[in-house]
């Protein structure tokens, strides 16, 4: 193999599994260390830089970081990354003075943001400090998008949502509630905008057109039903409820039904467990509330008598699962009638753009999805950008935020007449982590503690009102304990081949058998020859240049390294060293000043602020 090029920022970024897994590249290990030090406000600000909504996401993020977390491979449970984020938000104290601000003097450019969901809010967060005049159109009477209309208050309290939205909206955003955009052509022709961002989400719930569907009023579309509940238009439901589908929307529907008085709630799944779309933790939370999840039932028809829903007929499915765990074949083994009073359909959403004319240069593909560039988020019409669920279909909040950041860069460049595809590249800082002979700038000892369990409101109390938050959050003590579980994956092992005398000390000391000194070879074959075979192909091998004495190479399998630093401590020549990597992600404000991000080491106290002042002069 060729020696690994560690100067490519992607190499060490990838080692930080959580940050690599996070669409917005949140610097997880650094904020976890800040929490461990009790620096909650700094942890909050660091989060805010990349994910904008730490308090919201600390409760409801889809958390792709957690399945990616190395701790989950070393033992079974990942670090409770998401809930630690909430700790930073809960305990941060007053941070108002550290938030970005809009300059009094504007830069003369006007941008329309359509939809007041998290995607548009992120664009506003990034562009307002640069002096843009931002007009945000929202169809509904309240901002927040699905975060308000669909994510139930028992998971995300309204005050938390309002507070983080207000951090952005108070930068002078011209929010026009109840003013849906009815014609894109009209907006483009008569609005006088320099750019338009479409963040209208995927508002159309999928239908299930089976016999009987429209013969009753008791069948609802999940996202519309949740919206009616959120805005207080609906406050009751029948006793027996069937939820069709087993994704995250279904989980919110079943739990909301219980809070509206349903006594018997069944979630009907077509496939067996393991094939569900809902995250494990959402399933756990629903089952804790005694929701029944019924597998292998495929809906066949609604049974309606005299306009009244009696129940549904399901086909009983059987599946053959192959060795790879995939469904190889399925067949119908019978039928079953299940009585119920109401049905909620939670089988997915689509985008819908009836208000975008098809002759104004904005192209749509064969599925009526707009053609959007994956890097710039620009549509086929210059100056019109899409982001969030509107761009590529339903995803989640953290993806919408990342789209927003990238679209903000494009909008800025577009408005300044710069080529939008020429973007500032990400950078990488490496900082010494050595403080003394056996002293490192991080807590390197492996803590065998297991994942802290989240305390929940008692079952007895939580159903009393619709908006009683179920999760109580971690105490500072629980947070400190959980923080110690983080393996500090950003404290990188960095190797200097010319210094190595091939004494094997590092190979022997490594508790997880990461290291090997061996003759070089092709990757596939080399992976098998290591101290412990490297069979996780998703994780890279770090291969050195030829070692001076024998011409062999040092190979590190990054997969299970616990970043204990023992290799560096045992190395007599400091050929292995521990260095902190810091990914430098450029945002619109960096593009605006043409100054790449500097990283925390060279920034003056207070750390992790978003540099509103620095931008003011540039705008």
């Amino acid at each position, binding site marked *: 193999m060729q020696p690994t090029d560690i100067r490519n920022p992607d190499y060490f970024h990838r080692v930080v599994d959580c940050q690599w897994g996070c669409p917005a590249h949140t610097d997880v290990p650094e904020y976890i260390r800040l929490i461990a030090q009790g620096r909650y406000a700094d942890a909050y600000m660091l989060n805010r830089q990349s994910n904008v909504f730490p308090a919201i996401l600390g409760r409801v993020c889809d958390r792709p970081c957690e399945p990616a977390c190395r701790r989950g491979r070393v033992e079974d449970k990942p670090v409770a990354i998401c809930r630690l984020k909430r700790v930073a938000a809960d305990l941060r104290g007053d941070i108002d003075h550290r938030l970005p601000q809009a300059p009094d003097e504007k830069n003369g450019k006007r941008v329309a943001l359509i939809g007041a969901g998290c995607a548009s809010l992120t664009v506003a967060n990034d562009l307002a400090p640069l002096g843009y005049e931002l007009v945000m159109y929202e169809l509904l009477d309240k901002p927040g998008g699905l975060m308000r209309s669909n994510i139930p208050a028992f998971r995300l309290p309204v005050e938390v949502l309002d507070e983080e939205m207000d951090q952005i909206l108070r930068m002078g955003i011209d929010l026009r509630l109840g003013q849906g955009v009815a014609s894109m052509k009209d907006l483009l022709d008569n609005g006088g905008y320099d750019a338009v961002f479409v963040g209208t989400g995927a508002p159309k719930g999928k239908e299930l057109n089976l016999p009987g569907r429209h013969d009753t009023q008791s069948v609802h579309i999940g996202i519309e039903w949740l919206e009616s509940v959120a805005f207080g238009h609906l406050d009751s439901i029948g006793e027996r409820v069937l939820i069709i589908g087993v994704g995250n929307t279904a989980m919110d529907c079943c739990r909301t039904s219980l809070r509206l008085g349903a006594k018997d709630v069944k979630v009907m799944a077509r496939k067996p467990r393991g094939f569900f779309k809902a995250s494990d933790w959402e399933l756990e939370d629903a089952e804790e509330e005694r929701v029944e999840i019924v597998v292998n039932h495929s809906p066949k028809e609604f049974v309606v008598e005299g306009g009244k829903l009696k129940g549904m007929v399901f086909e009983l499915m059987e599946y053959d699962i192959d060795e790879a765990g995939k469904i190889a074949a399925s067949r119908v083994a019978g039928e079953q009638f299940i009585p119920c009073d109401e049905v909620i359909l939670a089988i997915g959403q689509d985008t819908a753009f009836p208000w975008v004319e098809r002759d104004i240069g904005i192209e749509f593909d064969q599925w009526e999805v707009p053609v959007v560039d994956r890097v710039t988020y620009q549509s086929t019409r210059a100056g019109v950008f899409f982001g969030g669920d509107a761009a590529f279909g339903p995803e989640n909040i953290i993806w919408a935020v990342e789209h927003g950041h990238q679209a903000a860069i494009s909008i800025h460049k577009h408005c300044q007449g710069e080529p939008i595809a020429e973007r500032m590249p990400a950078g990488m800082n490496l900082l010494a982590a050595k403080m003394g002979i*056996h002293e490192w700038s991080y807590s390197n000892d492996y803590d065998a503690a297991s994942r802290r369990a989240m305390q929940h409101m008692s079952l007895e109390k939580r159903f009393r009102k619709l908006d009683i938050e179920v999760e109580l959050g971690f105490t500072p003590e629980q947070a400190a304990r959980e923080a110690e579980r983080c393996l500090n994956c950003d404290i990188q092992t960095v190797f200097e081949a010319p210094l190595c005398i091939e*004494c*094997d000390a590092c190979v*022997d000391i490594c508790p997880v058998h990461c290291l090997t000194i061996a003759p070089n070879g092709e990757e596939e074959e080399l992976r098998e020859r290591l101290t412990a075979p490297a069979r996780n192909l998703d994780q890279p091998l770090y291969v050195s240049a030829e070692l001076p004495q024998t011409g062999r190479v040092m190979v590190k399998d990054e997969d299970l390294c616990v970043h204990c630093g023992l290799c560096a401590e045992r190395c*007599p020549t400091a050929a292995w060293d521990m260095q902190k990597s810091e990914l430098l992600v450029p945002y619109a404000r960096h593009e605006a000043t043409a100054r790449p991000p500097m990283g925390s080491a060279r920034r003056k106290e207070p750390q992790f602020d978003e540099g509103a002042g620095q931008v003011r002069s540039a705008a």
Partner: protein
Amino acid sequence: MSYIARPKVSHPALARNDLGLTMRDYEGGMSTLCAGCGHDSITGSLIQAVFELSIPPHRMAKLSGIGCSSKTPAYFASSSHGFNSVHGRMPSVATGAAAVNGDLQYIGVSGDGDSLSIGIGQFVHAMRRNLNMLYLIEDNGVYGLTKGQFSASADAGSTAKRGEVNEQPAIDPCLLAIAAGCGFVARGFSGDRAQLVPLLKAGLSHRGFAMIDVISPCVTFNDHEGSTKSYRFTRENAFPIDHTDFIPPEAEIKADIGRGESQRVELHGGGSILLRKLAREYDIGDRGEAYRYLDARQGKGEVVTGLLFLQEGGADMHELSRLGETPLADLPYGRLCPGPDALAELQNRLR
């Protein structure tokens, strides 16, 4: 020396041996030797060898004298028996232990100072007695523990870290062992595990005294220019005479015998080793030839490594001294301690 202990966390897919144990089950305490010491790498090789041979930890006894090298037993197989004796006196302790319990796997770890200076008499007699044990000399050419004085294995003309030149000729433990009648003589290098691990496994399987001199650089006092026991010098001058592979009995068929010239050597204790000839110009079973060959090559400054001499089938101490097969520990109490009448009778016989 490291500040934190090696954490208990381990690779979830770690290989298991026939006893269901992993390499980590054969670990010992955290080494307190200097980082980069050759001795630690030998410890790593020993762990690998006993793991691969599936030796039950409670059937091993680790013995040593005094020196950095003699601290090795503390760093592997913490659930085995161990005895850290006085300087140079490990062979006597091993003799006593083996006499009363011949069933254990004895592993002696010594140093060039421990075996070739203060303990040379004991060392030679243990070979003469043909004690059934693996005897390692972790050879760094200095007294590491007492801060780097030349030892008896230091080559004439080599220099100390501060520049003094050693003028006395070296005692080569391999030549000494061949001359003293040892049946298994080998030399390894801590920095060449591919060779060392099979040698250790063969030595452990040999019935009788198996002596392996392992060149083991002292990073702190003897890894400089002018040293002939440094990592660099050993790598540049090491001359492996054969490519050694240890093949346990049940895996014999898998052996790579077809390639080139090779010589299979059956071992008395079960198993065999396969020697692929690289440069050996003599018969491994001929004591005189082995001595002459080694002496000549080493005269030219080469560090000859590999299995140098092997003679199987010689009677070990147990047979020679007609000792009982049953370890004393396994005797019923009545036989072990037959009481005052038996003692009186014995004393009568001696009057």
